[in-house]
């Protein structure tokens, strides 16, 4: 690589930086003093730099702002729409699936509830010997089925709903609603405890 090639590589940045006297460009300045070709290139780059610094902006239609705001307003209406009650075309099949899962779970052949509960009690007693746990069989199954059905219902409902999970605006609303609900439950628990 010749000295001209090396200088040419540095020339655009040298000119863009205002042809400073800094030490970093000492070799460039030294070469320009003796090389007419590189001086001509520097002149051309100077014209380019001057032209680019005055590059005009493209003028847009003055009605662009109004069009943008109209489109954003329409988008806001769409987001509000997402938070209305799920349409019946979603609720009915989701509820049907949840009920089917619950009935299927309830009709499965299960080991004796009492045996299961005793096993659970023994396991928990082993972990917490000082705090034997009393678990009622009916309550145990009721809680298990309720958790299962709720989880299935929420999951199916969300997957079938029109809610756009990739929209952070919607996600922000979910976050604020969940945290609001959690705060209210916490407040209720503190008041009743």
């Amino acid at each position, binding site marked *: 690589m010749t000295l001209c090639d090396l200088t040419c590589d540095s020339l655009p940045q040298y000119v863009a930086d205002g042809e400073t006297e800094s030490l970093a460009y000492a070799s460039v300045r030294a070469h320009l003093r003796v090389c007419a070709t590189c001086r001509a290139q520097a002149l051309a780059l100077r014209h*380019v730099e001057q032209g680019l610094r005055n590059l005009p902006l493209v003028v847009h239609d003055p009605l662009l702002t109004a069009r943008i705001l109209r489109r954003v307003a329409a988008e806001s209406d769409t987001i509000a729409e997402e938070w209305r009650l799920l349409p019946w075309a979603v609720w009915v099949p989701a509820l049907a699936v949840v009920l089917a899962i619950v009935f299927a779970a309830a009709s499965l052949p299960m080991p004796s509830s009492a045996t299961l509960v005793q096993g659970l009690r023994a396991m928990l007693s082993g972990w917490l010997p000082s705090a034997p746990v009393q678990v009622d069989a009916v309550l145990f199954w009721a809680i298990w089925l309720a958790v299962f059905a709720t989880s299935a219902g929420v999951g199916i409902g969300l997957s079938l709903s029109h809610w756009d999970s990739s929209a952070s605006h919607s996600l922000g609303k979910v976050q604020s609603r969940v945290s609001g609900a959690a705060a209210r439950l916490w407040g209720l628990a503190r008041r009743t405890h």
Partner: protein
Amino acid sequence: MNAPPSDLIVRAQEGDMQAFAALVQSTQTGVYNLAYSLLHSREEAEDLTQETFVRVWRALPGFRAEAKFTTWLYRITVNTCLNRRRQLSAEMAKVDGQTDPESVSIPEDEPTAATLRDERSAVLWRAVQQLPAKYRLVISLFYQQQLSYPEIARTLALPLGTIKAHLNRARQSLAKSLRGQQEGLDDPV
């Protein structure tokens, strides 16, 4: 372009449409020019500008002040435009087998012809439009939007060295074009 005041951004994040309108008015020219530099069409640039601000509206609650608002805004603009260019390439491929996004035609009517001061400015403008898109993009961000090198690097998620290399190659290419044009003008007929 000056950065919009932070209280305006906060109010827009809370859903204040007037604050958002003020944000749009202060930044739409930059967004429009960035879109135009990539797409070379006023209609596409306007459409992309609208789409960009819709995306900004959706994503605004999630904006954190760690980055400058304009850096974040231009990142959305660039991504939106690049997606559109990919769509255009795919459409072109279906129509005439071309896939080169650089074959988007240079507009015949220069929108800024009235504001170009002289023939040299007009020549430079045309030369800029003929640069590859990646060079036009950094030229627009550096000279029109007046972002610094680090800001451009953050906007485009590219190393600082790459940004400087793109700009320097663009400058060299433009200098070569201008010298060629000047020699053509100087040649006796």
